């Protein structure tokens, strides 16, 4: 309920702002809504939204999978961690733009380079989060599993995974918003479709209405994913804590 009030207030402020500065600087919500409908009618909106969403999902999945594996390995092996950590710091602090440009220059302006650039930008983030998770693993439970001769699978499923789940969920939540922002830049720089491509088009025409018309549906989509997928998952991962730990 409070969220709804806050959302309505946001729209009202937007409308008032649009009246003050004029449609050339800030188109009002209704005009943007109209543009969304128009773009949907031509099929452009659905197509580009779909393309971008696919890139987000693939890049996100790649980064989370590889990042988790590397993060776990680093958290478990101090020597490996000490060796890889400088690379990680370098990758973490390399601007997203530089990674994207290198990917396009090395791999060509194609889908593979685009996905590689997206995944590589999110990767260090996932690595760092899961490394923390691996470091926080309880050695006493591991001893218990060892003493009772837990099989590899049982150890993973019932001892390790429940401890890592909150870290994975946190990484996923921060990751999704990061990935979608990077996807836009990737599309803007070197893809002939997607939300980022359309935004570039709108920017060159100074069409603020179109710019917002493409930004808002995706923001909405991300909010939905966050509310109905990621947050419930996170709650599920740590629900046993509610029973006292």
């Amino acid at each position: 309920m409070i969220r709804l009030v806050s959302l309505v207030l946001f729209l009202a402020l937007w409308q008032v702002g649009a009246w003050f500065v004029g449609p050339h600087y800030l188109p009002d919500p209704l005009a943007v809504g109209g543009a969304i409908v128009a773009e949907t009618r031509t099929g452009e909106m659905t197509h580009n939204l779909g393309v971008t969403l696919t890139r987000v999902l693939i890049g996100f999945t790649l980064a989370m999978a590889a990042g988790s594996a590397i993060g776990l390995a680093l958290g478990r092996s101090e020597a490996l961690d000490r060796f890889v950590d400088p690379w990680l710091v370098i990758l973490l602090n390399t601007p997203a733009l530089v990674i994207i440009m290198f990917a396009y220059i090395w791999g060509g302006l194609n889908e593979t380079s685009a996905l590689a650039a997206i995944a590589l930008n999110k990767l260090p983030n996932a690595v760092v989060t899961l490394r923390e998770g691996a470091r926080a693993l309880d050695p006493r439970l591991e001893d218990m599993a060892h003493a009772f001769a837990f099989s590899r699978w049982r150890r993973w499923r019932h001892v390790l995974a429940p401890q890592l789940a909150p870290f994975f969920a946190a990484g996923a939540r921060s990751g999704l918003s990061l990935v979608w922002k990077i996807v836009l830049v990737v599309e803007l720089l070197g893809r002939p479709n997607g939300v980022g491509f359309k935004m570039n088009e709108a920017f060159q025409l100074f069409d603020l209405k179109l710019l917002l018309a493409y930004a808002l549906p995706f923001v909405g989509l991300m909010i939905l994913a966050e509310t109905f997928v990621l947050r419930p998952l996170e709650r599920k991962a740590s629900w046993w804590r509610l029973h006292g730990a």
Partner: protein
Amino acid sequence: MALEIDILRKAFVLAGGGERVVFDHFSLRVNDGAIVALVGPSGCGKSSLLRIVAGLDRKFSGAVKTPPGRLGMVFQEPRLLPWRNVVDNLRLAAPTLTDAALVDLLAAFELDGHGGDFPGQLSLGLARRVALARAFAVEPDLVLLDEPFASLDRALHTRLRALLSLRIGARKMTALIATHDLDDALLLADEVIFLEAAPARITGRLPIKMPREKRDENLTELRALNANYQVIAPDEDAKS
């Protein structure tokens, strides 16, 4: 086959540099089916010894031969998986546990009605019972108990000790019980082994012949036994 412990040397590196030698030429033989209590002050290496026997600590020189078969262990803290309920905690440790055996086990440790509870919902006394039940769920051939009654109040301590005593007698198994409470040792063990600290050495052994079920009523007599346990001179055990 007996449990044979021969530790040439075991030392822990201290945080401030240097090291603390816990075992230096330490040997102990436990016959098949014997229940042995290790009694000594805290820090004398009881927990370290159990960890080595369990195969959890391999950083020592020497050899430990354990009897073949399953291992059941009770740690100083219950160490249950907080995200699994009581029944799942038991089943994960003992996948072959039948439904009938599970019911028996819950009853034996007075856990009826708690099967669906999560560890966070249990009192310490209940959690310890689950930990004990888990060790016996695997039908162990070797049981290692590390201060299984630590930080329980006296009434609970006594009750849980009685449950354990019944369970130990129910089936043939070799057991090592680490405790600093002499009564625990006198009531549960076939032989009490007295340890002294740093590096750990055996200062005495006290065999107890009295049947376990009669010990509760004769505890005073048992305590008196303790006064004349067989003392091992420091020189004598150094050569082993």
